[in-house]
């Protein structure tokens, strides 16, 4: 089974900063009844799916890689969803984590690659 992945262009923010924020958000999501977990459910993440993700570490389900930029100053972030829980992780990513990152750093800071062309 191939690993599904999405590519983002980073603007004004480093891969390290984004990775740290993802780790922070993930850590909060792992705690039942945390503010973030409640917020994620409010934003459309299925509560049962979120619960089922709690048995995995971030590294087990999400691989973050620095990609090639489109020019020397542009940085790309590749987010790969590991097959073990790809659908659920992608759901959480699309419905909560990505939006959270965009609110934290700015919508322009982390944009899907296709939007930049």
């Amino acid at each position, binding site marked *: 089974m191939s690993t599904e992945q999405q590519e983002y262009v980073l*603007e*004004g923010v480093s891969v390290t900063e984004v990775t740290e924020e993802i780790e922070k958000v993930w850590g909060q999501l792992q705690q039942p009844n945390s*503010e973030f977990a409640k917020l994620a459910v409010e934003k459309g993440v299925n509560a049962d799916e979120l619960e089922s993700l709690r048995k995995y570490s971030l590294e087990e389900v999400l691989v973050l890689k620095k990609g090639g930029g489109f020019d020397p100053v542009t940085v790309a972030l590749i987010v790969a969803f590991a097959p073990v829980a790809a659908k659920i992780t992608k759901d959480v990513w699309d419905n909560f984590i990505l939006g959270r990152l965009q609110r*934290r*750093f*700015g*919508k*322009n*800071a982390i944009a899907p690659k296709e939007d930049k062309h």
Partner: protein
Amino acid sequence: MNVEEHILLSGRKALAARLVQIEAALPLEARFRRESAEIAYARLDLKLKDIFPQEKEQLDNNEIRLDVSLDTLIGRLQFFAQGDLLKQPQLFDDLQQALDQRAKRMACDACSKLAPLVCNGGVRDDEIVSLGGACLAPLKDMFDIAHNVGRHYYVTRGTLMTGNPDVVFATEKFSQKNPHHKPHDLPVDYFINGETVYADTPGLTRARVVLKVPVEAFDTNTYLSTLYILFHECIVHAFHAITSTAQTRVGPKPEDRFVEGWMDWVSYEVLNEVLSGTGLVKAPVNLRFLRQRRDRAFDFHLARVKCQGPSMAPFSQLASQRATGKSAATKVLDLFKNRPKDCTDPWKKFLQLSFDLNMMSDFDEDQRETFVTMLDFLEDDDRAPDLSPQHNILAGIVTNYLRNNNIRRFIDSVLALKTRWLR
């Protein structure tokens, strides 16, 4: 009560400090100059930019409340200012007092309608900000002015306003690639932009005006230019295409010459007359620095349409499109002015035409494009000798509109010229 999304707590801490600094220092700006401390004033406006990276940990820590964070940031700013104002002790005392007063207005317990719960980076933050939002109050107050003025003008001057379109305020952080990176491509150093997002549902016309803020770069000039952005969003976009609620509105393209050129000029002129005290609505008495806001609005508006000057000047890519829209608008207004028998109040009539065109859902993108293109055939000086045949035909159509007040016929008559003049 609608809960809108706002900049997250970490960004709001920084923005709140900026707003406190600006609103405390600006009333003292003349005194800084009189007391030969203009450099200290300029340094004060830059200092928080240096402090933010040093305070990153507490800004990012959601367990530290906004007002606690503000105490630290403003305390550091005061310490810095004290060093710069050693020879102006009274000025420093007054600045310190003003900073403390402004910061106190942002106290979280007093702000939060959900107290003892205050913003903590959690699920209720947006609700707390929507219900209270003392940390964003200076921006929200500007939005309220722009929204109220826009609505009043549309209701009073336009003839097509129906229902009660909802317009709400939201904020969003903008990420900078470098300290000069702006949320627009205009040749003007104001670090702010806006976007109106349509969130219509069956039976409810709803626009969300989103202020895009690079929080670290938000300085005094940006603060003073923000009202122009909000007037643009509220007058150009919030009531756009509202005459039909059959489908969700689609935002115009950035190169739309009518919306972004013609209507932007209208919004600028309305802001200008309100700030000058000659508009339909008076600026609230607590809105200060009217001249400075007018000056920044002029700069901002000009930067949108400026496409002539030194060959290497960095013009906006779309300036030419917007300039065409503005040109068509000004020429139509001039025609109104030159027909006193048919038009006793040219500005009033021009506002009616502009607002009605902008509100019409069936005045679509293609029509707008052709409409502006054809009207730009008008000549600048309607009283010049040897006017072109195109000018005379268009002037006749405009005069007919002034006499019969039939906007659809006016549009169709202008659009019909396309097949004759453009091949």
